């Protein structure tokens, strides 16, 4: 059981790290602010979600679990808000605005 959980952690965190890598590559390579934000949300949402999910079996129930979930929710909330603000600013000041 513990082996299966460890395998699950390794797999989930690795996939999460892959999404972070993909998001960062997109951030560096994409041509304009809106597509760059689009790339970043992949890292934020999928990457962080997978990393947190992978770490859940490794922490103590219930405090550790709740802490991880709280971190996940707060990062989601902050990331989403900042993306919205940046996207609107970019659209206002963008070349085709």
């Amino acid at each position: 059981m513990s082996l299966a959980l460890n395998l699950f952690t390794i797999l989930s965190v690795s996939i999460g790290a892959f999404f972070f890598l993909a998001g960062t590559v997109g951030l560096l390579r994409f041509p304009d602010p809106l597509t760059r934000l689009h790339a970043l949300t992949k890292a934020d949402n999928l990457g962080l979600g997978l990393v947190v999910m992978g770490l859940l079996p490794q922490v103590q129930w219930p405090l550790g679990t709740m802490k991880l979930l709280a971190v996940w929710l707060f990062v989601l909330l902050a990331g989403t808000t900042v993306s919205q603000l940046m996207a609107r600013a970019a659209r206002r000041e963008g070349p085709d605005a």
Partner: protein
Amino acid sequence: MTLALAVDFGLALLVLAVAGWTIAVRDTFAAVIGFVAYGLLLALIWVRLAAPDVALTEAAIGSGLTGLLLLGAAARLRAIETPATAPGTALRWVAGGLCVLVAAGLAALVLWLPDPAPTLAPMAVAHLPATGLGNPVTGVLVAYRAIDTLLEAVVLLPALIGVWSLASDRCWGGAPILRYPRQDGALTLLAQVLPPFGIILGIYLCWNGADEPGGAFQGGAVLAAMWALILLAGLADAPPVSRRWLRVLLVAGSAVFLAVGLAGIWIAEAFLAYPAGYAKPLILIIEVVLTLSVAVALGLLIAGPPAEDPT
């Protein structure tokens, strides 16, 4: 090389790179963003050095709050800023030479430290039970070196007066305006959802400072950030700076600290000394009032000079 060492090495390189970029970049706004990232990385390094108290302060005040103040300054300067001109060769050489001297001096000091380095840590821990505290850092801050903390609390007030003095005559005594120029649903939602959690966290940091990492300044910074968020979203307005209750709140922390310190001359044996047995409750009272004062002062620092006609 172990994995932890590799992570530390990477962190150190990253901090150096971000620091170099912050200095080299010409755009003020970009430099401020670099400074904030630098502060957050530095906080991670303090965590790795097992100094969570310093990490909390660095993240909350060094990076977050100072970053906000610098962002505000950059936004104000944007209208009148001229593009920076490259300094002359001679000036560059002098600046570079002085930097090398400072770095070499610091490196020499660190390398020539006696082994083991001189430390007061064992003494600080040995006398901690007398204060009733569990966190030696808080013990140093409010008991052994209380005078430093008192001055830190007091210095916020001249800083705030400095910011207020930028107000125009017409607006003197009025309310500062810190509001995102456009109504924005996302920002409003964040300012409605986050503050309840932030306020709990701020109180927790203050209360927990006695036994665990945390304290008045960290807690106050979190509370101030929540206030700034609410102001920014336009959910509430800052009070006019001439309000009596506001000024009482601002000086309350320093005043209580000073009063307890002065009382120490008679009821204990020295200025800022606590009478035996009453150290813990007195420290707690100081911390609570100080947190409130720090939160209000930091919030008003972020809000900027009065910009609204008081009438």
